[in-house]
């Protein structure tokens, strides 16, 4: 049997202390919603929202919707991640590619790409392809810029010594450039992930169908505020879990890096 050490007790106390504000907020929400100051339509109590989430879960709808949303978000994110790193690496190593894509990336990055949603719907229809395309379009820019910046900042000495020891271009890329640029690439991915989630929710709201955004919009059309708040809670939990997973992945991947040892 594991003994309860001081360190464990301290860690538990720390966790509880951090949980306290969240619990307080939930309690305040419940009390405020029940006090009659606002109608249940404006602000349903968290207990009512939880009930609704449980109903959805038992009916199976919840899992279908979560599955659809996650599939689109992660598929789009994965394509943006791979495509962004490839494009960024090519731009960092090839002057012609840099000349062509640099203005497109630097003009396209700050643009609100979500405005192209109706154009994408016009081209690709209302189904998964256009939702995923929209996610890729929005999420790829931070990955490209982070990859270009990451590779550009790799120390020249590293490259020279690798070349000296006879590394070929391919080895140089896989064994020197990408690992050395990894911290910045991961930062780019950490920027891209929340963007992917925001965009997937908007596309689902706009186009309807399965998915958490679509379900929320439907609840909103039927003035079902419990459904709307249930959607917010579900999306918030998914967002939190994915962002936490990404941070965990970063720690794992950078365990060899200075940054990993500091933490």
């Amino acid at each position, binding site marked *: 049997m594991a003994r309860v050490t001081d360190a464990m007790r301290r860690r538990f106390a720390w966790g509880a202390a951090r949980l306290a504000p969240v619990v307080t907020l939930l309690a305040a929400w419940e009390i405020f919603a029940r006090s009659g100051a606002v109608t249940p339509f404006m602000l349903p109590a968290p207990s009512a929202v939880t009930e609704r989430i449980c109903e959805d879960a038992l009916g199976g709808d919840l899992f279908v919707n979560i599955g659809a949303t996650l599939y689109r978000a992660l598929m789009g994110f994965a394509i943006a991640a791979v495509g962004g790193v490839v494009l960024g690496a090519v731009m960092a190593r090839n002057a012609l590619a840099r000349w062509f894509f640099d203005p497109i990336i630097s003009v396209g990055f700050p643009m609100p790409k979500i405005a192209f949603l109706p154009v994408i719907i016009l081209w690709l229809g209302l189904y998964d392809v256009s939702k995923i395309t929209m996610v890729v379009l929005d999420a790829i820019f931070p990955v490209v810029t982070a990859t270009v910046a990451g590779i550009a900042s790799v120390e020249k000495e590293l490259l020279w010594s690798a070349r000296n020891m006879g590394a070929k271009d391919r080895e140089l890329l896989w064994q020197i450039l990408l690992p050395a640029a990894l911290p910045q690439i991961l930062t780019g991915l950490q920027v891209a992930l929340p963007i992917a989630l*925001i965009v997937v929710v908007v596309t689902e709201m706009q186009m309807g169908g399965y998915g958490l955004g679509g379900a*929320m919009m439907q609840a909103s059309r039927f003035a079902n505020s419990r459904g709307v708040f249930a959607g917010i809670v579900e999306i918030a939990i998914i967002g939190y879990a994915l962002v936490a997973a990404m941070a965990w992945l970063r720690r794992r991947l950078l365990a060899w890096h200075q940054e990993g040892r500091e933490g």
Partner: protein
Amino acid sequence: MTVAFSTGRGKPPGPASGRPDGKLPALRRLISNRSNFLLRYSPLLILALAWEAASRLQLASSLALPPLTDVARAWIELIQSGDLVGNGLSSLYRAGAGLALAILVGGALGVFMAVSRPANAMLGPLVELFYPMPKSALIPVTVLWLGFGDGSKILLIFLGCMLPVTIGAYNGARGSDQHLLWSARSMGARGLRVMWDVVVPSALPELLNGVRTALALAFILLVSSELVVARQGFGYLIGYLGANGSYEAMFAVVLTVAFIGFLADRVYQAVVERALRWRE
């Protein structure tokens, strides 16, 4: 990017030529800068030409991709009819108001969390909880609370943009040099004075970085919420024109919004660069 502009300049104006014309080198510099500018942005021009060619040569249906020149004509009509300006102003008002509130409240919150331990213990976990939430999920609730008009968009943008500013202000203010704080205190500065003269300026770079993120988010949330539910604004206009099949005009508005988002970011960066010049 700046490298491209600093190379290839004309000869610096010198007395060697013996002529009293400071104009010529300035002109030459302008032309040379302009040709650099052209070279740098020529890929965009190539894309625009490819667009025009693709639809003129019927490679893509002119419905799906109306020729760029037609889009430009539709843009001029939209300006003349006042639709673009009216909807645009209402969009910019919403984005501006929401963003201003987010900067004020979010910035104050971040600085407060950095200087007060209890505030940090109370608010830190909540900020951490809500920060990764995809803010677009709040669109239906803001509509539920405030209806279809300006209020719901301003609230959405405020809520969505606040936390990046808070985190920027918090990280910046927390990193402010303890020695500066001590010396300010030892010279008799107290409370708000220390805050305003020491903590806020040293938090400024990171705070302004957070604001830049918020600026981009404001545009995303503005257009999203107007696309989903609105009776006014850029997003509404895009949806309305698309539903009526006036695709040239729809493309014109989409490009306008994208350009304004881009322009806002560039102007913001230029202003920040100026504002932070004292740090060098």
